[in-house]
């Protein structure tokens, strides 16, 4: 279980995942050696995992980002498994989420432009299995996107 010092380290790390270790140690008020040991232990305990690069898809020419929400046919016992397996095969899908609520599944899908979106929608989305209903939210802008937690 992370202690108070671990939480302080994680608070600063989540606020700025690019902080160099020396700087992180200073902000969290620990020695670099102690920081190293604690990060190692948090990794071993599975509290923190990989550091992944965030990719800005717009800079790669993907101007369209759509949040697709689905309700599935729950009379089919394998509806979720089959749906997720099929969604993984669509390269333009960047996130797959399962929910409890009026929405069962949500996919984030990116496309180069509206023509490309239409093609993906017809060929890869409308063919996903066990879909009862779906709706789309088109991203206009991201106003906030942080990992920070009030620890």
């Amino acid at each position, binding site marked *: 279980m992370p202690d108070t010092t671990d939480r302080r380290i994680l608070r600063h790390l989540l606020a700025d995942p690019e902080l160099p270790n020396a700087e992180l140690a200073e902000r969290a008020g620990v020695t670099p050696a102690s920081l190293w040991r604690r990060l190692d232990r948090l990794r071993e305990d599975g509290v923190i995992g990989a550091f992944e*690069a965030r990719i800005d898809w717009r800079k790669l020419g993907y101007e369209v980002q759509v949040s697709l929400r689905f309700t599935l046919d729950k009379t089919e016992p394998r509806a979720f498994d089959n749906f997720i397996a099929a969604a993984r095969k669509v390269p333009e899908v960047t996130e797959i989420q399962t929910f409890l609520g009026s929405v069962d599944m949500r996919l984030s899908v990116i496309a180069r432009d509206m023509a490309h979106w239409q093609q993906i929608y017809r060929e890869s989305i409308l063919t996903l299995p066990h879909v009862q209903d779906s709706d789309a939210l088109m991203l206009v802008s991201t106003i906030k996107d942080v990992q920070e937690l009030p620890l």
Partner: protein
Amino acid sequence: MTPDATDLAILRLLSEDATRSAAEIGRHLGMTQPATWRRIKRLTDEGVIAGRRIVVDTTALGFGVTVFLGIKLAAKGRVGLEDFERAVTAIPEVQTVQHVLGQFDYRLRVRARDIADFERILRRRIMTLPGVGQVEANVLLSEERRPGPL
């Protein structure tokens, strides 16, 4: 920018593990360290590599509940949007705010300690936001990030 196959391979390796060095990535792709470093620098300078994300077990940190909210504003207009955005981004438990087109106007990602904590955030912070209308909540059960078209 228009990336070539080598750029995409570099992005794929870095999106799995951003701490990989240019030398290590170069070895994977059969390139020299300086040539790999120059490409990573260009991808970073162009903003394609927009930073880092840490995979973290938020449940172990006491935040066991993630809820996505769809919010429709009751009254629209430019001032309404600005007031709403300023107030919603100031809520510490709200990690993501996206302006969207469709059935809702905004999508929020909210982290809470438990359902009771979520109820507190919903009642005290969300329902009191300026201009807030219809709110739909969906509790996240699981999520998976995909590499995308790399």
